[in-house]
């Protein structure tokens, strides 16, 4: 992924509510990465973070038009760049 300006590297759990990010890669075992990619979170996909749950965890995402809820511990393993 070559971009002109250096992208800010983050994990998905650091993205603010209402912000968007682009998936770079997913850490963790193959099982976990495969599941998320099956749901559409393939590298390069844009993800919007909608909100956090009332008690702060999990978080709600929009991926390819579908809404998902994912724990912060899981979002920590998804590396993203700012859009």
């Amino acid at each position, binding site marked *: 992924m070559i971009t002109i300006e250096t992208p800010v590297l983050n994990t998905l759990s650091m993205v603010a509510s209402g912000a968007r990010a682009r998936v770079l890669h997913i850490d963790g075992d193959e099982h976990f990465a495969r599941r998320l990619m099956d749901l*559409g979170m393939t*590298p390069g996909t844009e993800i919007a973070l*909608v*909100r956090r749950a009332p008690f702060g965890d999990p978080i709600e995402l929009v991926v390819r038009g579908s809404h998902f809820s994912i724990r912060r511990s899981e979002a920590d393993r998804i590396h993203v760049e700012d859009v």
Partner: protein
Amino acid sequence: MSKTSERVALVGSPNSGKSSLFNRLTGLRQKVANYPGVTVEKTVGDCVLPSGKRIELLDLPGTYSMAPRSPDEQIVRDVLEGRRESTDGADLVVAVVDATNLERQLYLALQILSTGRPAILVLNLIDAAEAEGIAIDVDALTRRLGVPVLAVSAKTGRGVDRLREAMDAPRGNGHGNGAATANGGANGGATLLAGANDPARGYKDVEAIVREVVRRRPKPDPLRIRIDHVLTHRVFGPVIFLLLMATVFQSIYAWATPAMDVIDAGFTALSGVVRATLPAGPLQSLIADGMIAGAGTVASFLPQLVILFFFLALLEDSGYMARAAFIMDRVMGAVGLPGRAFLPLLSSFACAIPGIMATRTIESRNDRLTTILIAPFMSCSARLPVYALLIGAFIPDKHLLGFVGLRGLTLLALYLFGIAAALAVAWVLKRTVLRGRRPLYVMELPPYRVPTWRSVLLTIRNRCVLFLKRAGTVIVAVSIVLWFLATYPSGHPETRALEAQAHAATAAGATAEAARLDDAAAGSALRHSFAGMLGQVIEPAIRPLGFDWKIGIGLISSFAAREVMVSTMATIYNLESGSGNDASASLRRILPGVTDARTGLPVYTPLVAVSLMVFFALACQCMSTVAVVRRETNSWRWPIFMLVLMNVMAWGASFLVYQGGRMLGWV
């Protein structure tokens, strides 16, 4: 559903409306069973095609991918690849996708088509898609995929007739043969297969197709955003959640009671009819006291199950259940359970039977089993009559600090004790027998949809049929065994003498004396029955808990249902056991005065009462719970594990209470 009939499998992701379509195609001609050896449920139905041909329709579990990660998904893959013995493949696959979001839904559909089975693609929820301004070029998609593509709305029935026709069309001659056409198509079967193993590539293919056939891109649904803003709001979200849960609980706890009373009265009347028509004797007793009583127990659960599954179907089909799990995940996560465990555990305060049946919304096997195993620790309403009797008889009606009633406090303590035991067991199970990595939580928050009556009613019906067939039979069988134990051997000389005296008193017109002697005869019969002997046999085991053999009889008979303890104790002490309230009131009066014939000391002391209540809080004295756990886990292993675990815990806790109390000098 003969084995020779053709089998058609419905495959799709969760929330694709696959089950609504299944209900639309099969109506009442469906049944739920289990795949052999696993807890995954198998839903099959009969469907008649326009040519008059009958097919067997299989509603496969919802899946997101053909790379299986759960028992559910393994089943889907096995069926599509014809690997499961019991379900040797499918002759035709109907891939169901939600037309409002083709970009995500076609990913699974492409994997299904790549298996090479004859297939049809159904664009379900087509009305919702059109309402959102999405236009799909069905002809272009048909050409692109090489399989019939049909726009359908399972909700309104639009396109369902054409789907039936397509299912009826001859297969294997190009039309409908997905593999052959896809191989010859522009995309090529090889690419489709590669997509199944490489999500990035699979989604690239999907993006290309969507660009070609979808004419308007979906916009985020503003209504959904507005509803979510309230339902998952930081303050209103949890408040609305608690209000909804309180409504569900209140309805199964209180609103089911009138219906249960009617059912109870009906079965009592029925056994009255049997007593009046059949000659007195073993057959009359077997039918009236064994079989009808057992059937009555089974039927009395139905009002709670109907109400619970009505709410459950409503919450699940509308999309709210996913939000409830979203809100509660953090809270329940503190004890290692998923957010979806909240409702089953709450329901268990009314009764563990509906509670355990409600755990089917929990996806992870270990989480579901943990929830099932701790549900019976919640103080159910059947424990209440026993608590009320013992508290009324032995806990003084005093107030602490002038306003905190000691009796109320004792009851509250028993409820909290049950919860604490449940959490402790969950903690231990999650670290021992049900250990495993924390299951992936990631979950779809589906769009809100108005539930259809058809789906809600079919859910209720299927759950009730399952309960009656699988758990009901066990319950009736066990109640016949319990009846036998409490009835035989009959004709002990003491019982005979009392019966003769009662007859004489009746003949002499001394009604009160006759009634007293009748009660005495019933008590004598029970004391000399197998149950009575068993009470004596287990006495050495329960003596350290402060229980005598008569309490032992009560414990054995309360396996029918916990509240039976009260009427059994009334019978043992020669009291009229007819109406529960009267029996409880007279027992409350006499129990404190009961003395041991050998020692002359009181049998029931406040310490014995507390020990007995602790025992009831923990012990698994409920054949219906055992039967329903057997049904929900599809094996005898877990119900037996639960039975042993709970009763060992109950014995240990009562032992500590009784012996500890005596060491401290309490009586």
